[in-house]
């Protein structure tokens, strides 16, 4: 497969716009940021969002088995086009079965980030990989390279990264229209374009910010932000959560007791 496509002009424009957004708070306390040999912040390690956003990225009261949450959407408002707002309400009503998460599908971006499961970042100068515990989702972020020529549809999108100062900026396109942002039915189309910004605040915290753009669904771009926490348990590691296998495990070849 050829990876030679150039970034389309509109995407370059968006990237430039994203770089103008206000910079998050500078690193403070808890010691200096760890850095790699090439001087970039070292994001390697196991991280987890501690949030209720997987149930609802907007502010919500508690329900059974759903803790209340303040939401992660800036301004707490998602600028749906009218048809899309109706679709969202329909999704919400049918969320128990309609949520792709209930089918154990790959969660997409940014949802993979704020699922209540840890993930691990592996960082090298040209290539950053993120391995998620949830359904062994995995993302490869190739640095300073272009998206391939589309149309392409990936569940986790196609990710291209670059450093802006101490912020890892990841441009993600080529999604399916099959994933949701949360259990509450917030959704997007295959025209989704996500720009993620990973800014380390301390050695133990990353400020995660994502700008969401989808001209088919929203009237304007909107933003989410939340902290990621470095898991500091001794011997912590990403385990597995093979959601679609639950209840289907075989026993016929188990040794006799």
């Amino acid at each position: 497969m050829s990876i030679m496509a150039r970034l389309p002009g509109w995407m370059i424009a968006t990237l430039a716009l994203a770089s103008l957004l206000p910079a998050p708070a500078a690193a403070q306390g808890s010691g200096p940021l760890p850095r790699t040999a090439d001087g970039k912040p070292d994001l390697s390690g196991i991280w987890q969002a501690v949030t209720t956003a997987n149930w609802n990225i907007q502010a919500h009261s508690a329900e059974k088995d759903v803790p209340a949450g303040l939401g992660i959407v800036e301004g707490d408002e998602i600028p749906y086009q009218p048809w899309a707002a109706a679709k969202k309400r329909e999704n919400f009503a049918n969320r128990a079965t309609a949520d792709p998460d209930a089918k154990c599908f790959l969660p997409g971006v940014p949802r993979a980030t704020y699922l209540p499961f840890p993930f691990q970042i592996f960082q090298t100068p040209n290539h950053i990989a993120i391995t998620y515990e949830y359904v062994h989702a995995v993302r490869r972020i190739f640095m300073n390279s272009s998206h391939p020529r589309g149309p392409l549809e990936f569940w986790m999108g196609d990710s291209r990264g670059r450093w802006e100062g101490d912020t890892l900026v990841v441009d993600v396109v080529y999604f399916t229209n099959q994933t949701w942002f949360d259990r509450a039915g917030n959704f997007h189309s295959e025209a989704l374009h996500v720009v993620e910004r990973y800014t380390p605040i301390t050695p133990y915290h990353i400020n995660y910010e994502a700008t969401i753009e989808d001209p088919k669904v929203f009237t304007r771009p909107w933003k989410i932000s939340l902290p990621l926490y470095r898991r500091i348990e001794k011997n912590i590691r990403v385990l597995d959560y093979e959601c679609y296998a639950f209840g289907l495990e075989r026993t016929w070849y188990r040794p006799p007791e």
Partner: protein
Amino acid sequence: MSTRLRHSLRVFALVLVLWWAAPASAAAQNWSPSRLPDGQPDIQGTWEGSADSANAGHSLEEGCCDPEHNKMQQRAASNIGLRKQVIIDPPNGRIPFQPWAIEKRREHLINLEAPTELQHIEPEDRCSLQGVPRSNLRGPIQILQSPGQVVMLFEWVHAYRVIPVDGRPHAPKGAATWQGDSRGRWEGNTLVVEATNFRFDPVGYNKQPWIDSHGTFYTDSLRVVERWKFVDANTVDYEATIEDPKVFTQPWKIAYQIQRLREKNFELIEEGCWEGVSVSNRLEAGRIAAKSGKQRIHSHTEP
């Protein structure tokens, strides 16, 4: 000793103590409290509604109760009604319900006497969080302060309120809670607290608190502004303005005094509630009453 019994005895003792202590409290006007590192007046300690507010938690309009009830609850037989009008605005001391809400409240009062559904039972008896201002009318309140916040701990159903006084904005509307979302600020020695974003459960009413036992209900439009005026080391002139344009014809106001608890080495103890509550007998009795058509409205005056 059951916590509830211990509690009622304490309230009784307290009423006597405060009855005696009350006249002294009006004196100091320019109390200068010690200050905490973040500049807040230090109001820590344990407080409780004064004798003037006794029984107001049951009904802000009528107090509580009747001699028979008092006997059951091991309360003094004479402890009936309100000592002082608690609703100061409107001047008639009645809650300014809109016409539809009068009907709704009447329904609550009938169901209260013969509950057949869980939501007919008084929220307090269902161990509900009490919300604002009702939390302040039920037993001791311990106030702790740490930089930027006032924390109120209630013995009743081990409830608490965290009141930021650091100027932060209210939580988003979507995250409504039974206790409401409180934001405070200091005006001299007066702690002004605005509580909004109360949770409202129009369908089930399962845990929907009321403002008193007499079915004083509200909607998600409830907004309460409290003024905790610390007039001396031991006294708060407490005032709360209650508005809910969906239920009331006008904002209304309650006022009473809150006193520092004088008991030495007082410690809040755990009052489990939900863990021990049983409502099935009451529902059974309610069903029998409803069947026999002997329903009546809950009232302390009508037989």
